């Protein structure tokens, strides 16, 4: 043992400090580094996904890109099954093995801010109390136009395959004998 102790590099103390010295904590800015959400390997642009929750649950949609927030940008396309451009969490989605060609679809302009709601004018409590009904949400013309462009570019490749179109239009559901954990998608 003696030679091992002698071989220790000089300058380093041979003894442990008597008191514990706490290591300084990392600065707050360093700790909260934004790590992008990891996309499931089965989800790539063009993957047909089954939505599992929300208003469009059971619908088959096409994945377009991952947003900065980590959510998936999907669309029905709207013309086929009524699902507009929409953000969904990848946890609420089943990725199928079917892939469409979406290389011609340009969604670079669509980001998280695109889906932000317009700030409402503040109402007084009295106004809110007497309001008759909530205002119907209106889809802006710009969004409708964007949807049309995206739909058209997806449908260009889809129009040849009638069965594929019918597939996207059909809703996914389980029957009695189906065991989703043992099924291949």
């Amino acid at each position, binding site marked *: 043992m003696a030679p091992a102790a002698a071989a220790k590099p000089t300058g380093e103390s041979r003894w442990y400090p008597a008191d514990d010295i706490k290591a300084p904590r990392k600065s707050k800015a360093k700790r909260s580094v934004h790590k992008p959400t990891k996309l499931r390997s089965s989800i790539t642009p063009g993957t*047909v996904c*089954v939505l599992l929750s929300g208003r469009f649950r059971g619908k*088959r949609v096409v994945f377009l890109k991952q947003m900065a927030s980590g959510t998936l940008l999907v669309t029905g396309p709207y013309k086929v099954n009524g699902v507009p451009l929409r953000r969904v969490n990848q946890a609420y989605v*089943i990725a*199928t*093995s*079917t892939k469409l060609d979406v290389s011609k679809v340009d969604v670079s302009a669509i980001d998280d801010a695109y889906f932000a709601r317009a700030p409402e004018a503040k109402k007084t409590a009295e106004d809110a109390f007497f309001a008759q009904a909530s205002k119907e949400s209106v889809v802006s013309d710009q969004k409708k136009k964007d949807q049309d462009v995206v739909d058209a570019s997806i449908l260009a490749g889809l129009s040849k395959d009638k*069965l*594929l179109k*019918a*597939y996207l239009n*059909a809703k*996914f559901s389980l029957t009695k004998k189906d065991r989703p954990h*043992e099924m*291949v*998608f």
Partner: protein
Amino acid sequence: MGFTRFVEIGRVALINYGPDEGKLCTIIDVVDHNKALIDGPEELTGVKRQMIPFKRLALTDFKVKILRNARQGTLKKAFAEADVLAKWGATAWARKRAAKAKRASLGDLDRFKLMIARKQKARAVNTALAKLKKSA
């Protein structure tokens, strides 16, 4: 109803449990009342020479002409000569297994296509049946 399938040297069996599940093998020797020595042959069925309990075997109708403790080459020759794989593939037993495996491997889109095809078939059958009923 007598027995037609026997444990004997050269009997082809299906392995129904364990890592070799679903593969064919040939009985080469009987170890005792519970175990047999089997061989694929490995090149044709993918089953290595091993000892296996009868509990994991299901006997088939096929038999290969070999002697006890046949070597791999001899067995392979006899197995190929008896054309066991083709004959096995033609049995209802094998076809049912294959269909089951095929169905389990279908993806979401394939399941949808299958559903459509079944609908079309049913419609064709029903219209034909209705026609026959009308004319009868």
